């Protein structure tokens, strides 16, 4: 019981990830209309359209118009993640996240050496590269190779070779890349990080309670967002790269972190009710 309490957000995230997959799966196979389609484009209750905004941008970059349905769907998604934190997608929705987390567990146990350190900022480069390649190749370049959509699609529409994405990403994360797929390559994560720079829901940080034990930094998949001076000054974990995974919240013995709504303008008081 105490384990569940100490990992309450982790449990919630796994439930969220599995639940979303399950709803999509039921939509595809049992004609349950709560969620139909997949992460690229879908409908909620067969009406509200949702669309991957980065995919929509790639289609535009490839020189093709996108339909109003996809445009509205992408706008809904951008607005949603502007509220709940851009990379909340990464830790609450994306099917690659459990794979990446497993990779981190393996890594922590075996401490592999000699990995390639690709800068975390490289992902923004790959995000731009995806748009450039879309323009050059005339198709949505990342959508054609995305392990994220491939894995999601294969789980929902029948398990084919695409499930090989799982061992591939594990191998990449454990053996090759120091920060892993999610930490330095994923263009989709980079896109959501850009939205996340301005988004509202964030872990608030009560600097006066912090005893600098470093537990949060050890557990955080993007520890650069926990730069003490910066978050102490802002009172919030800023930066788009925070995935709102809430591991810091549940791991901290001092209860320094808590979800709260970040003030839109600097200097405004944060909302008084904590979430």
């Amino acid at each position, binding site marked *: 019981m105490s384990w569940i309490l100490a990992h309450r957000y982790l449990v919630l995230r796994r439930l969220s990830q599995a639940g979303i997959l399950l709803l999509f799966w039921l939509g*595809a196979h049992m*004609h349950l209309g709560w969620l*139909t*389609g*997949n992460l*690229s*484009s879908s*409908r909620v209750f067969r009406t509200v*359209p949702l*669309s*991957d905004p980065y*995919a929509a941008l790639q*289609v535009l970059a490839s*020189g*093709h118009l*996108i*339909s109003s*349905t*996809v445009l509205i*769907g992408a706008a809904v998604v951008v607005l949603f993640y502007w509220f709940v934190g851009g990379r909340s997608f990464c830790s609450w929705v994306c099917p690659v996240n459990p794979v990446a987390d497993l990779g981190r567990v393996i890594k922590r146990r075996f401490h592999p050496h000699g990995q390639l350190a*690709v*800068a975390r*900022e*490289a992902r*923004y*480069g*790959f995000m731009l*590269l*995806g748009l*450039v*390649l879309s323009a*050059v*190749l*005339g*198709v*949505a*370049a990342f*959508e*054609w*190779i995305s392990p994220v*959509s*491939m894995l999601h*699609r*294969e789980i929902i*529409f*029948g398990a*084919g*070779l*695409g499930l*090989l*994405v799982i061992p591939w990403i594990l191998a990449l994360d454990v053996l090759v890349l120091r920060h892993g797929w999610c930490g330095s390559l994923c263009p989709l994560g980079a896109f959501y990080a850009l939205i996340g*720079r*301005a988004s509202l829901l964030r872990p608030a940080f009560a600097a006066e309670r912090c005893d600098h034990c470093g537990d949060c930094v050890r557990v955080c998949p993007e520890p650069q*967002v926990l*730069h003490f001076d910066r978050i102490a*000054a*802002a009172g919030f974990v*800023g*930066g*788009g790269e925070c995935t709102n995974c809430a591991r810091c919240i549940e791991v901290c013995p001092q209860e320094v972190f808590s979800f709260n709504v970040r003030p839109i303008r600097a200097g405004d008081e944060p909302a008084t009710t904590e979430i």
Partner: protein
Amino acid sequence: MSDSGFSRREFLAGAFRGRNLALAGTGGAVWAQLVEGQRGPILRRRPPGARAEPEFLATCTKCGQCVEACPYDTLELATAGQESLGTPSFEPRKIPCHMCPDVPCVAACPSGSLVPDTAIEDARMGLAVLSDQETCLAFQGLRCEVCYRACPLIGQAIQLEFRPQERTGKHAFFLPVVNSNACTGCGMCEHSCVLEEAAIKVLPRDLAQGKLGSNYRFGWEEEPTISRDFGPSDAVQPEAWQDNTSKVLDALDELEETTTP
């Protein structure tokens, strides 16, 4: 934002360092190769109303909503290892398109890759081709016509052509002939073909269809008519034919009367 890990200027300055450019170049080349490698020969039978292949490939979001909307489970998304990963297509020999009048797959498509409000008779999923006369039963002089009867546009997309059977001297061939102006490529014919391997197959239109050059102009279709040589002859009109026949018979009778002593 000042509280983010880096500034735009730092990012831009960093991006153009040699090592990063090399990384982007290598990554970009591998990436482009992975995309181009999937294009392959396009041998896919696309859902009804699919736009021309290049536009279809560019706009399809691979969401699978057409697949889910199909009540016959006809459509499938291409899995890893197949060309144009994630896009929908179907194999008529497994499950053909049943040509639903309300076209639910098109209605479900969010991206317009399946052109909205496509009427199912206007769909061009492919083109049926009787690709092997040596195995088609009809061409052996046997009565089959299964593809003809299975065709949802019977008598339009597949017509029967009758030809005398010279081997026996008293039978006829009933030969299925596809009309590319009417065939939707639904694949009912391929699906129903009784052979072990279908002699009639739906091929992608790009592959199967000819194109008449604009230099060809049919005289009998021009206005005013340029030539009547190949136009519909009065003689084949039934009434005219009967008229002519009776005239010939009358003439023969007259001839007989005058020549008999």
